[in-house]
């Protein structure tokens, strides 16, 4: 549709705003990070010249490699847990009445009204040795002595799942909502049982939602540094903690920058995979 002359100034204004935003608040900071990652460390001014790739070489240091791998492991476990809970949840959500759907989606979003840092502290109160969960289980007589929940890898994963689950459910809900009943009936009619219909029709059709959910959970799960800070103790670090420590404590900006670029590249890779899966699916034609 051709814009009318009246719309033209508005259109230009919006475009300038969007491009301005992208240039100054997305592209420029990222370029600064790339720049910082190839400079040298300087205790006084944070960064200094000779350009080099030392920071990237340091990423391969076994010590950090281990932190990265452990962080990746926790993020993957978080993503799997979110998927395991979120997939059936989104499916069920898309099958209840429309009014109840609105209510449930609303309840899913309500926690965002409270700062995630505050909610993580609340989780700490629940998981602590003398916390709600242990006391409840003791009172019920299910355990004899408090379990050590806080400051474990499990606590970090629980915290991450708690914070990130809605980001898995919402894209999944969107693909399940678009899933037409007729396709499932057609599969059934053509001789498929429940399992075959799930594997050959439902999974491929919901894959874009799964990938979108994975994208929204996996990478943030490696970056949410305050979760290990509050729940994880010193051993269960995320890449986010490494980046934060390099900038704020170790004052090694090039290394922190290189680590954050690693995360950005991982994100770009996932976006690419997501796009690829969408293209294969194509836009559904017809009615």
């Amino acid at each position: 549709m051709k814009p009318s002359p009246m719309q033209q100034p508005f259109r230009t204004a919006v475009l300038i705003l969007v491009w301005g935003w992208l240039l100054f608040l997305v592209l420029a900071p990222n370029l600064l990070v790339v720049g910082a990652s190839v400079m040298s460390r300087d205790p006084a001014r944070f960064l200094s010249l000779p350009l080099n790739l030392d920071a990237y070489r340091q990423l391969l240091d076994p010590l950090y490699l281990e932190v990265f791998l452990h962080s990746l492991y926790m993020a993957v476990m978080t993503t799997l847990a979110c998927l395991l809970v979120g997939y059936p949840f989104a499916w069920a959500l898309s099958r209840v009445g429309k009014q109840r759907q609105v209510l449930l989606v609303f309840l899913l979003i309500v926690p965002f009204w409270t700062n995630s840092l505050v909610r993580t502290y609340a989780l700490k109160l629940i998981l602590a040795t003398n916390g709600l969960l242990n006391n409840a289980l003791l009172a019920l007589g299910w355990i004899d002595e408090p379990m050590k929940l806080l400051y474990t890898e499990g606590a970090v994963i629980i915290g991450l799942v708690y914070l990130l689950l809605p980001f898995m459910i919402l894209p999944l809900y969107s693909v399940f909502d678009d899933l037409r009943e007729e396709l499932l009936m057609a599969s059934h009619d053509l001789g498929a049982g429940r399992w075959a219909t799930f594997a050959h029709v439902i999974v491929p059709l919901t894959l874009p939602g799964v990938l979108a959910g994975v994208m929204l959970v996996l990478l943030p799960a490696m970056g949410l540094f305050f979760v290990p800070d509050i729940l994880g103790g010193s051993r269960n670090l995320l890449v986010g903690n490494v980046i934060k420590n390099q900038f704020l404590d170790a004052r090694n900006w090039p290394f922190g920058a290189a680590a954050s670029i690693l995360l950005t590249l991982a994100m770009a890779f996932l976006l690419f995979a997501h796009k690829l899966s969408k293209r294969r699916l194509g836009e559904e034609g017809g009615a």
Partner: protein
Amino acid sequence: MTQESDLSCQGLVRRFGAHTAVDHVSLDVPAGAFFSILGPSGCGKTTLLRLLAGFDRPDEGEIRIRGQRMNEVPPNRRPVNMVFQHLALFPTMTVGDNIAYGLKRQKVPAAERRRRVAEVLEQVGLPGLADRNPQELSGGQRQRVALARCLVLRPTLLLLDEPLGALDLKLREQMKVELKHLQKAFGTTFVYITHDQSEAMVMSDQVAVMRAGRFEQVASPEQLYREPATPFVAGFVGDNNRLSGELVGLDAGLADVRLPDGTRVRGRLAGEAPAKGAPVALFVRPEALVLAGEALRPDYATVRTEVRTTLFDGANSRVEVRHGDQTLYARLPQDGSAPRLTEGSTLYLAWDPALARVFALGEP
């Protein structure tokens, strides 16, 4: 119940709360027939189709396919396949994979699968399209893929749920003829549901006219057209004019009807003879009406009407006239024989009483 019938239903009932969607429907479809269920939306035809496919279970009655009771058999184990209203092609699969889907579920080996997919694509006139995505095909091509996906399984019965509804008019006309040819070529028994009487008439061997959960009449298209059993069928199948009046006499199956203005007309009586003076409706088709001018034929029934407007539509051109407060349509022949009609002028319409049907009113 004969042995050759592919589908036989006895007293099917399906209720939803207080509403009876399918109300004691019995039907028999012989092998190789094209059977249509025709009815307005909400008449229960979709519910009936779901019962046949196995997506729903009847509250009463029995469904037999080639003599086998099917009531408890789930859809994936019935020798029945369905072409859905929106076709329901899997968008994540190619045309070939869509068609092979049912064969894979039956564990047909890959080599035979490929051969049968290629064969059925050839039969529906889409050779070599196996590697396309359904989204790349035209509406008519997608129809044929949906058909091929079912026919490749060689079902005893193919159910079709108004699959032509989404097509534009021209393509729909084309697909009607093509569906009929394909049905003959494959020899599969088709059960087709539609609200479009023209679809049902053109394609079917037998048509069941359904209304409020019941079959009003099951007959060949020609019989439905010529011998409608109820006023509903007369009004629903094909165009028809309806004149209300009262019965004044009966003579060898011909009913004399007095219209409100006193005009006497005649038509063949359908069903039991009502008492004299009973309210009746006379149905006469636009194509049975003759533009009589002044020269009236003695054995024909004639009404005096006033021209309202002419509706030019090529071979389907009609004239709209009023008789008292009743509106009639008559076909206008396009061979130059029709007089020039001006609004408000008087026009005599006549018809052969054998072509008109008179129904006693009072029953729904």
